[in-house]
């Protein structure tokens, strides 16, 4: 516990320091980042060095609050991704923020960054509901200030506002949830909550948790803040938010599930439905986007969907007493949490490089960047292949486990079989769509010819930006190869989480390790094949003539870069096929006459839920709130009178 608290202290101290050093932009940039990097390294170190840290409880002058913190295996997993990714993002941030020198308040950016990291750590280690909620709120507020880093832009300010409202609506549900739980146990300490409440309460708490934590995690349809806030934030912050912060919602949900005892049957089904809807719609909307960071944000929703499918299977396993589902479902979901942190962090950092070098996020005006920045391009490619779940990278391993859990259950009772089959079909569909989406993202941005002048001056970023991406890309490759060694780590997490005894968890893990060993062998086989065919090609081409010409254009004399396929045209067949769901809007001037003059064409796809659910809903709220204006007229004397009335009413009620 000690080292961890020191690293927490370091975050707070370095964060406060930069606030004081605000005038020296350069210095504050380094102090803030170094604080976060060192804290991250210490944090990761503490997780590996100290296997069973002692819980700590200190008195705290807050009613019902105790400053009690502890680390358990589940928390350690989340702490690992918090510390790793925050250290890497901080390193990247040094160079990324340097460009804002003198234009922006870098000191406050680092203050909120470090505060965000510290508050996420607190969320994970908190063992008291009040402490948890305070940390949760700190996390939301500090990330809000990071989102509005460029708040002078209207779009950014609007995104920040949407985020602030969404996250507070989520917190509202959590507040009610914790009050209900605390009330029924007579205490707000998690340690007192080991006995599950009875009756309807667990189901009510579960629903509140799904809505509250789901808002943070980005479950559809509570996701609408994600595609707004992620693109608005600076890229290293988007990486941290998408890679780690939204996972706090998953952490919270899993943590609360441990307080509720045996889950009802429908909980698992509800989670699986949410997972499938988020997964499929997330990737579909991603495919229809032309803004790189917005596309990645929708992909986070898709991956959260996959994670929730895994956890839903686990919960279903708990209520049907099915150890295979419990173990493989939870491991698949939780491993995907880690994997997604790696590749989505990597992709957002890569998107940051693209944005910084070309000053645009529009995929359609980019092109040919691989030649200008070969290393960044390679890293982005690794991330893109990993997020599609392609072997031999890490994304495949976690998706394999969820597939495997489902396939193992296609022989049982009909409801479970149907669930398993629906999950298999959904994952396959998501996989196919993800390949379409990321061949588009990588292919249009990095391959072909530059589509506009934006790409002219693009070049490789400095080492501080390349190194974090390199580490994450390496992690994607290595996790894919080391999966049989990683799986047993989850043993204690599952035992803690599910209450299933060790001797029933172990055999299932062993059953899953065996295929993973084979997958690693097949991966090695694949890599050897690569080397062999590369060597064969080299030998065959030795001494032969290798020419360079322009791309074959069927004899057309003047090809131009604008004739290439764009992101919109690439995705068009799928988007049009599913236009009933996506409702893409097309704007443009159609070609007419024999010698057409200027014409243009543009498509955009707005969020279905935002347009059909939230916009009407908030309009209604606005209208209803308007009816209350007679009550709020701005006269202070009457307000004081209201307070007096309330106090008297409370007094009478208490008598």
């Amino acid at each position: 516990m000690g080292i961890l608290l020191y690293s927490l202290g370091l975050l707070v101290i370095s964060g406060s320091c930069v606030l004081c050093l605000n005038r020296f932009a350069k210095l504050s940039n380094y102090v803030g980042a170094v604080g976060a990097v060192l804290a991250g390294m210490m944090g990761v170190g503490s997780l590996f060095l100290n296997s069973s840290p002692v819980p700590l409880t200190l008195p705290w002058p807050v009613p019902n609050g105790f400053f009690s913190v502890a680390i358990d295996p589940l928390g350690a997993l989340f702490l690992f991704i918090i510390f790793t990714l925050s250290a890497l993002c901080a390193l990247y941030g040094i160079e990324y923020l340097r460009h804002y020198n003198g234009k922006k308040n870098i000191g406050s950016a680092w203050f909120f960054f470090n505060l965000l990291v510290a508050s996420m750590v607190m969320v994970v280690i908190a063992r008291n509901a009040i402490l948890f909620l305070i940390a949760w709120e700190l996390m939301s507020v500090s990330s809000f200030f990071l989102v509005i880093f460029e708040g002078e832009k209207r779009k950014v300010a609007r995104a920040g506002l949407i985020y602030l409202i969404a996250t507070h609506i989520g917190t509202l549900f959590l507040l009610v949830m914790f009050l209900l739980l605390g009330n029924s146990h007579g205490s707000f300490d998690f340690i007192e909550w080991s006995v599950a409440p009875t009756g309807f309460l667990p189901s009510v708490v579960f629903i509140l948790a799904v809505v509250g934590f789901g808002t943070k995690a980005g479950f559809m349809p509570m996701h609408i803040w994600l595609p707004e806030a992620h693109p608005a934030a600076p890229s290293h912050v988007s990486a941290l938010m998408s890679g780690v912060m939204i996972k706090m919602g998953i952490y919270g949900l899993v943590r609360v599930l441990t307080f509720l005892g045996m889950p009802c049957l429908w909980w698992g089904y509800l989670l699986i439905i949410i997972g499938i809807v988020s997964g499929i719609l997330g990737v579909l909307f991603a495919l229809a986007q032309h803004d790189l960071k917005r596309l990645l944000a929708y992909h986070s929703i898709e991956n959260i969907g996959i994670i929730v499918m895994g956890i839903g299977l686990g919960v279903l396993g708990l209520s049907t007493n099915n150890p295979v589902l419990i173990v493989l479902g939870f491991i698949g979901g939780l491993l995907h949490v880690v994997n997604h942190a790696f590749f989505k962090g990597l992709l957002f950092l890569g998107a940051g490089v693209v944005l910084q070098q070309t000053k645009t996020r529009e995929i359609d005006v980019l092109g040919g960047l691989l030649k200008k920045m070969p290393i960044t391009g390679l890293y982005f490619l690794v991330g893109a292949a990993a997020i599609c779940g392609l072997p031999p990278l890490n994304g495949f391993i976690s998706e394999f486990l969820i597939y495997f859990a489902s396939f193992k259950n296609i022989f049982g009772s009909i409801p479970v079989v149907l669930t398993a089959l629906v999950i298999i079909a959904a994952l396959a569909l998501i996989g196919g769509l993800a390949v379409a989406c990321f061949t588009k993202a990588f292919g249009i941005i990095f391959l072909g010819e530059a589509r506009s002048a934006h790409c002219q001056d693009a070049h490789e970023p400095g080492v501080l930006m390349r190194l974090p991406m390199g580490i994450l890309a390496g992690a994607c490759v290595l996790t894919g190869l080391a999966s049989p060694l990683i799986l047993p780590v989850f043993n204690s997490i599952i035992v803690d989480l599910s209450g299933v005894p060790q001797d029933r968890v172990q055999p299932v893990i062993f059953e899953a390790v065996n295929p993973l060993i084979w997958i690693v062998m097949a991966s090695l086989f694949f890599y050897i094949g690569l080397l062999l065919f590369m060597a064969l090609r080299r030998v065959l081409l030795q001494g032969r003539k290798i020419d360079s010409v322009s791309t074959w254009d069927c004899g057309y004399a003047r090809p131009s870069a604008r004739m290439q396929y764009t992101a919109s045209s690439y995705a068009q067949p799928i988007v049009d096929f599913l236009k009933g769901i996506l409702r893409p809007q097309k704007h443009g001037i159609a070609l007419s006459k024999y010698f057409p003059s200027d014409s243009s064409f543009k498509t955009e796809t707005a969020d279905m839920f935002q347009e059909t659910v939230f916009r009407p809903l908030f309009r209604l709220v606005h209208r209803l709130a308007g009816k209350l204006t007679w009550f709020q007229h701005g006269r202070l004397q009457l307000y004081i009178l209201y307070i007096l009335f309330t106090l008297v009413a409370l007094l009478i009620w208490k008598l």
Partner: protein
Amino acid sequence: MVIKIAQFILIILLSPFLFGVINRTKAFFAGRKGSSLFQLYYDIFKLFQKGAVYSTTTTWIFVAGPIISLSAILTASALIPFAGHPSLVSFDGDLILFIYLLGLARFFTVLAALDTGSSFEGMGASREVQFAVFAEPALFLSLAALARITGTLSISDIFSNLTIHPLAMGEPVIFLVVGALFIIFLTENSRIPVDDPNTHLELTMIHEVMVLDHGGVDLGYIFYGAAIKFWILGTLLTGIFLGAHSKGWAWDYVMFIFGMMILAVIVGVVESVLARLRLIKVPHFLIVSLALAVLALAFTMR
């Protein structure tokens, strides 16, 4: 183990032969004499002896595409049984790896196509990924149906446990799965009625147009990969028809290779008598295969 390696080598050696059979069949229908049965071997050999021409637009992705695709397809072929005998690599859940390896091959073929910056190849790439979106779930569900009736999760075990003979028993599950798999087989191998392997005109721009700029060794790799992919997906179909193996390995081998040739003839006949579908209809065709797979699964629940 030695036998398994020998079988793996046989797949590598025999697969280009089937293309010769298809072309002969098509030639027969057209009233031509047709090329040699070994034409693809000659073609690959010829391509391996050529130099290379690269577009100035392309990057290393263009070269890596065929290499990664071939390696992925070869790895996938190690998961596929031969004549009902277990494959080189088989484990519980290998069917997931199999489908994803084909996905990996597609991912890099598509990227190599986009690397040329040609709108033709972009068009092909876009269509390829669109069709895969429908084909992949159909393939997963078809294999799930087979897994359900055999009670196993590895491709090798599925085919060695599949003792129901489809014609004798009239088992609807098998019929439906065969229908679904045949559609996927034609799609994945870019055959008529989904794609036309003979041309790369705009109307049919899918697989052939994606490899328009490749030449020399790279094109040789692509041809080889296509041949192996044809073989391994074809094995899923012939494997169902041949069912269990019993009369000694020599008989099994002969029957299996004969079965693969029949399959090639069927593909040749389909290509000779059918026209290619309109591109807009292809997704509907693929949804038929998805529907067949779902129906097959429904029948397994009786």
